[in-house]
């Protein structure tokens, strides 16, 4: 881009938000910023909207970093934002997508947790909401969605890293996304970006039964994983959340699928080097580059299979 922003580094929240503003300023015809709510600690929740015009077009939703410590996801989202903006007009596949659909990208889904992971505890995963009667802070925001809430694979202990919270949507970070998706009314794909162990998953996590679109989503995910692998050979495992990683209730893509958004997927980006989410900064851009190929493969399928 025109500015000197370093996409190959990890940044504090303020720098990410500034980079989002810079992108909007650089591509005002394509990119805009919308605030969809405020975190528990009153930080704004911003989505970038990529749109070439038209009212209430079908849309693709992407969020990153709901688990605060998975820094490569927020970094990948920011890189992806610039990729979408800079490739529009040059990439026929992206052009045809954006000529019919909008893309919404929540770069930092859990800003309180992200700040806390930068300033206090690098291993922080949850929100920062307070639980009455407990000394422990925070809810796992990916156990807080209204999808088998409180079931297997979530904890009712406020001190646990997978605490599901007092009720579904109790976390304002989750509720804000739910409200946005519902009020939009025309979201056709919901993609959540995490990082750990290279997985591409689809519903369900709260139950180990197959969804009715299992065959199609499995096929889409395999195509996306192959596209991703083609760049650097990074191997992805593909399948439903329950069998690919573990049973987990209250997850975002289970909610989106049950809400009627057929194309619901979750990425777990690479941790080559066995560092978990402590991925060396030198791997941010390669991770983002390969992920982009996977995302584009999903975009193309969604674009070509309206429902």
């Amino acid at each position, binding site marked *: 881009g025109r500015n*000197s922003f370093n996409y190959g580094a990890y940044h504090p929240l303020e720098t990410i938000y500034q980079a989002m503003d810079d992108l909007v300023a650089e591509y005002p015809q394509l990119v805009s910023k919308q605030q969809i709510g405020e975190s528990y600690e009153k930080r704004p929740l911003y989505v970038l909207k990529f749109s070439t015009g038209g009212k209430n077009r079908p849309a693709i939703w992407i969020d990153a970093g709901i688990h605060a410590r998975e820094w490569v996801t927020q970094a990948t989202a920011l890189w992806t934002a610039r990729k979408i903006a800079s490739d529009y007009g040059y990439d026929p596949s992206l052009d045809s997508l954006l000529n019919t659909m909008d893309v919404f990208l929540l770069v930092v889904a859990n800003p309180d947790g992200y700040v806390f992971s930068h300033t206090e505890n690098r291993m922080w995963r949850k929100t920062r909401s307070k639980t009455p009667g407990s000394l422990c802070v925070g809810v796992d925001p990916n156990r807080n969605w209204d999808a088998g809430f409180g079931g297997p694979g979530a904890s009712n202990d406020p001190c646990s890293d997978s605490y599901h919270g007092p009720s579904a949507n109790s976390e304002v970070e989750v509720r804000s996304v739910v409200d946005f998706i519902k009020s939009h009314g025309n979201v056709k794909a919901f993609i959540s970006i995490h990082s750990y162990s290279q997985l591409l998953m689809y519903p369900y996590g709260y139950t180990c039964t197959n969804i009715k679109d299992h065959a199609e989503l499995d096929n889409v995910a395999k195509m996306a994983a192959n596209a991703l692998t083609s760049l650097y050979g990074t191997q992805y495992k593909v399948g439903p959340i329950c069998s690919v990683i573990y049973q987990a209730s209250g997850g975002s893509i289970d909610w989106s699928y049950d809400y009627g958004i057929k194309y619901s997927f979750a990425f777990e980006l690479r941790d080559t080097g066995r*560092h978990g989410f402590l991925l060396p900064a*030198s791997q941010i851009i390669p991770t983002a580059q390969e992920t982009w190929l996977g995302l584009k493969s999903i975009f193309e399928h969604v674009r070509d299979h309206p429902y």
Partner: protein
Amino acid sequence: LETFAGDQVLRVEPCNEEQVQLLKRLRAQQPLQLNFWRFPSFPNEPADVQVPFANLQNVKVFLESHQIKYSIMIEDVQAAVDEERREMDLNQRRER
């Protein structure tokens, strides 16, 4: 600012349902302050757990006494965090 000097991340590989259940019980032990990076789920699926230095011996003894296979994924978490911090400082200076 929380530090993790001497903390290790163990990759634990339960080979049957009984071992999975043992890991789930271990996870519920609050005094051990375990931070599961990947939760125990099914036999032959790895679980990754960050163990505070003070509890390393207890956890390793527990795993070994139940013949649960494990390896050390990260030798010293603080060293990894320090390296990351160095990279960020370097990158910030580079930008300026």
